[in-house]
């Protein structure tokens, strides 16, 4: 191959590697959050909320399956959705650090859900117009589901925040404790920049601004105080996680690790 042909090929390979990582970030965030919500099944504060959290989990895991399948195709090494979900170790997971945080009480679960719902609303809305047709189709579908999720989480945020003294103090405490992970949502790195340059994803700054406006409005409706911005020390998107992810994967991957390749 001539030197002239090698450079475009190298660029294309770099773009496909960045796309693989980008899709994995979206997929892993949905998968890990879905797994966390699944932990509520049988433990919800009321039957209706138990069902609601299970429904959110189902949608999220469905989105993760579509995204993981695509990631495997982009990578081109024969890994399918199951191989990617059940055979990677924690440092290979690229989910937002927020998604892996433990359920805590119902207020923690609602605040975590609401923060990620608001993030997905912006990310999926932009991706629905992506130059990548496959991602655009997945995002357009996921966006409809996410609007439904946000109605649930913002509704509970208002009910809890503007509720009793107990529900209010617990929800404010959840917000204050989880807010430090929110800086990661829109912290752009070289993967995001490459995606934006290729027209696959939109630049993150405008989405971050829309996210801030929506979050402030929802918090105002919930009569909760917006926490102060905090420095950005979290790197789940780069595979550096809190200790909680390993425990989650230990449970989620148990069967495939104990009996590799086992099928129903």
């Amino acid at each position, binding site marked *: 191959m001539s030197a002239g042909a090698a450079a475009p090929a190298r660029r294309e390979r770099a773009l496909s590697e960045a796309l693989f990582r980008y899709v994995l970030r979206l997929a892993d965030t949905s998968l890990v959050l879905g797994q966390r919500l699944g932990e509520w099944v049988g433990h919800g504060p009321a039957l209706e909320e138990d069902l609601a959290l299970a429904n959110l989990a189902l949608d999220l895991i469905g989105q993760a399956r579509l995204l993981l399948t695509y990631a495997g195709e982009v990578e081109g090494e024969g890994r399918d959705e199951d191989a990617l979900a059940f055979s990677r170790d924690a440092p290979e997971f690229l989910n937002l650090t927020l998604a892996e945080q433990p359920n805590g009480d119902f207020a923690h679960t609602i605040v975590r859900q609401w923060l990620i719902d608001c993030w997905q609303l912006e990310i999926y809305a932009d991706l629905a117009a992506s130059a990548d047709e496959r991602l655009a189709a997945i995002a357009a*579908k996921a966006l409809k589901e996410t609007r439904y999720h946000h109605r649930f989480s913002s509704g509970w945020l208002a009910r809890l925040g503007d509720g009793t003294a107990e529900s209010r103090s617990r929800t404010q405490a959840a917000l204050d404790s989880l807010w430090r992970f929110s800086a990661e949502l829109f912290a752009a790195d070289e993967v995001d920049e490459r995606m934006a340059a290729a027209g696959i994803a939109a630049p993150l700054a405008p989405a971050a601004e829309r996210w801030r406006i929506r979050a402030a409005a929802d918090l105002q409706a919930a009569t909760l105080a917006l926490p102060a911005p905090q420095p950005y020390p979290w790197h789940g998107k780069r595979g550096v996680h809190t200790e909680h992810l390993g425990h989650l994967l230990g449970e989620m991957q148990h069967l495939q690790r104990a009996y590799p390749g086992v099928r129903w």
Partner: protein
Amino acid sequence: MSAAAESSALEQQVWRLLADVPDPEIPVVSIVDLGIVRYVRRDEAGRLHVGITPTYSGCPATAVIRSATRAALDAAGYADALLEEVLAPAWSSDWVTPAGRARLAAFGIAPPQADPVRCPRCGSAATERVSEFGSTPCKAHYRCTQCREPFDRFKCI
């Protein structure tokens, strides 16, 4: 019969066949009633293509629907038909057909339409939402304050 008319007759036949494939969760409606079958067409080489779309990304019925559709095609002699999964445009509850809406209502599930939500049992508009989520991804939980019965509503999405 011309080639075009023959193609169209074949497509009609396959649509009728798929109208007998029930939804695994709500068996009173078919996959055609729910708007899951997106197209049936014959390409220039004579190959039959059938497009189906998932309702919700995580709906567990999707895999069952795919295999039931495949089985119905195979049993009717269309083993070489290509079954294709279509993601775009995303499925909408607007695609549930008028016949499907009537069947849902007769079964006791309020069909997906704008407010007011009417009780499928007594027809009253005096209803309230219990939960935005229900026993399957496509349903929400309501109750009638007139006849006091709980019921499912097909979610609008």
